[in-house]
């Protein structure tokens, strides 16, 4: 394959904007939530929608509770005169992938990518149970937290993690988020105190689970001249790949995420040092699984934003990881970073991007 996960054109993230992430943004609908974020992503590089060659977004009707919910959100873009545009019913990280492909194919030189989610109107763990095999799993209404508990138990029983290590991950994530003004959970009780809390879904305690968040994110992609014009130090996408595992949870080893490891390998994670990594792990044990899958060592600052454990706007939390790594590269705080996004239950589907400052 000619281009593969590296692509034949140099494409960079040149602008990132996000909303604050909150338990419930009751005063704004999806359009009102994402419009200022899109506007900021464009304005801070002096661009308008007329400068953008392709627009792609990610969202799901199951959060909005309405068919075709993304149609209304097009109003946040200013699609007049008409624009070249697409939408994925996936996390925005995959919208970014579609935009990256579109640029690699030569159909555009610039792209706006955004995603958003308001989980607050529904009962999220039960809503997510609708994303399961409709014949054998859905009728049982297994919640996302209940399923994750089965996975965590398998990891503990296999010696891959302990409840204390899980609490340490929760503590580290939420104390790191103290420096992230957009995060939802920005402090943590001490590890011993966390371990004294009751189980939510054995062996998961509340701190092991991502919060339920409303929020959104927008990024701008550019190649060539536009990248140079819009950013002093673009965050170049040196590798990007995504893979999916099987859905039959009874038929695969739940303690590993082969699709994450494969995507990481194809994106080139291990080819050089990793200064910073942002992992989309909605549960503490999944954080450990991803660190192991990518072979991240002590030299890597993992989830300095606090990650999904500090703010988890569904459909946006994956694209946020790309945005967070890009932000650190554009600021010069890091030279090489890894961003990861996941979709589905139990890390079934995974996307990995390697971003570099040069």
């Amino acid at each position, binding site marked *: 394959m000619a281009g593969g996960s590296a692509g034949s054109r140099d494409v960079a993230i040149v602008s990132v904007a996000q909303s604050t992430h909150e338990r419930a943004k009751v005063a704004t609908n999806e359009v009102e939530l994402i419009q200022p974020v899109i506007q900021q992503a464009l304005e801070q590089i002096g661009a308008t929608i007329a400068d953008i060659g392709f627009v792609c977004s990610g969202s799901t*009707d199951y959060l909005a509770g309405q068919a075709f919910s993304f149609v209304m959100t097009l109003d946040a873009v200013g699609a007049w005169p008409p624009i070249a545009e697409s939408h994925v019913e996936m996390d925005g990280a995959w919208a970014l992938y579609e935009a990256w492909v579109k640029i690699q194919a030569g159909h555009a030189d610039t792209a706006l990518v955004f995603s958003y989610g308001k989980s607050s109107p529904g009962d999220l763990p039960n809503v997510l149970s609708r994303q399961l095999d409709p014949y054998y799993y859905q009728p049982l209404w297994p919640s996302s937290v209940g399923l994750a508990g089965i996975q965590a138990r398998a990891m503990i029983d296999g010696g891959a993690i302990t409840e204390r290590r899980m609490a340490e991950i929760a503590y580290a994530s939420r104390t790191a988020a103290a420096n992230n003004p957009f995060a939802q959970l920005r402090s943590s009780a001490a590890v011993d105190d966390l371990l004294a809390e009751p189980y939510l879904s054995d062996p998961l305690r509340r701190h092991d689970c991502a919060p339920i968040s409303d929020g959104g994110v927008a990024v701008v992609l550019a190649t060539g001249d536009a990248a140079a014009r819009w950013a002093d130090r673009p965050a170049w996408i040196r590798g990007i790949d995504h893979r*999916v595992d099987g859905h039959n949870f009874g038929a695969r080893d739940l303690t590993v995420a082969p699709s994450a490891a494969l995507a990481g390998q194809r994106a080139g994670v291990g080819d050089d040092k990793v200064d910073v990594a942002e992992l989309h792990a909605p549960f503490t044990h999944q954080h450990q699984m991803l660190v192991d899958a990518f072979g991240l060592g002590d030299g890597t600052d993992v989830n300095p934003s606090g990650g999904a454990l500090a703010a988890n706007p569904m459909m946006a939390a994956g694209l946020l990881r790309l945005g967070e790594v890009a932000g650190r590269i554009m600021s010069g705080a890091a030279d090489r970073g890894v961003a990861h996004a996941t979709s589905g239950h139990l890390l079934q589907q995974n996307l990995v991007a390697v971003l570099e400052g040069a």
Partner: protein
Amino acid sequence: MAGQLAGVVGIGQTRHAAIRGDVSVAGLIREAVFRALDDAHMTMADIDAVVIGKAPDFFEGMMMPETYLADAIGAVGKPLLRVHTAGSVGGSTAIVATSHVEAGVAERVLTIAWEQQSCSEAMWALSFPIPFQQQLVAGAGGYFAPFIREYMRRSGAPEDIGILVALKDRLNALKNPYAHLHEPDITYDSVKESFMLWEPIRYSETCPSSDGAIAMVIAGEQAAEASAAASGNRPAWIRGTSMRSEPAMANGRDQVSPQAGKDCAADVYRQAGITDPRGQIDVVEMYVPFSWYEPMWLENLGFAPEGEGWRLTEQGVTQMDGDLPVNCSGGVLSTNPIGASGMLRFGEAAMQVRGTAGDHQIDGARTALGQAYGGAAQFFATWVVSADKP
């Protein structure tokens, strides 16, 4: 910069019906997938990436169902992307799959579009409740009827143009074994006498609600030629693709002939080197869910001057024996699994230039246009495919 050349080398669709109660969702999709793979002389192991599309997840009551489908469609260990751009999604999905090949990130892409509408009542899923929108209409027909009436007013078209379109498409469907509606007894009078749903759209001038799926294999130049050598059927070379969107509501927006549709056509013609659509395009598959959209899209796509599209219909130009056959498959008026309907247009266009359309084949078709639209006539997708390699 131009991407790498891509061609369609495998096309498979299901038998479409109001209720495909004999198969699961995965079973329905696999019926199309294996037909497409067989057509391409490939197996799932040959596929590098899967791009899948459908309309709203609420139609089946399954959130992001592709994660459940990953095993059944052979996507495990591969990239799997899910597209959703309203009614145009089938077309958009095929275009995203094409972009993967053009970009060089995959050599053989399996693309799928599907809908199992019998799981729900699509009409009410298409009627947005308060607080999302003012409660004005019931179903898509209720939404589009005023724009059809405005088209009739502007163009002065005779009132029976819609009847002619419906009769033509349903008769064409008799030549398509996969079509949902097979109505051998249909006549001009039976269409005219069918009851009025949304003035001026009669029951026989509206699309059915179908279960169905279509899959295609899109390959890079070398893989396409190898596949063609094995199957004996030439690739449908993809000469241009385009997507355009505009808001549902914008000051000055013309919903009868939307600017996004005109821009989309201009863009795809530029890529395909088409300066005279009527002269250079041999056959068209366009998204006509309500009969009057045939003359409306004929104008929007540049096949007729504004206000004159209905004359092509009236003169029989769009019939199978006319010089611009439209919807030889029977079109959306005969088969409408919403998420798949756009890709059915794209796939039927490709079948025509490959010479594999069977009884509804137009002899000598070399260049074909596939078009899909969605939302409030605001999302457009087109491609031009050709028997001739550029």
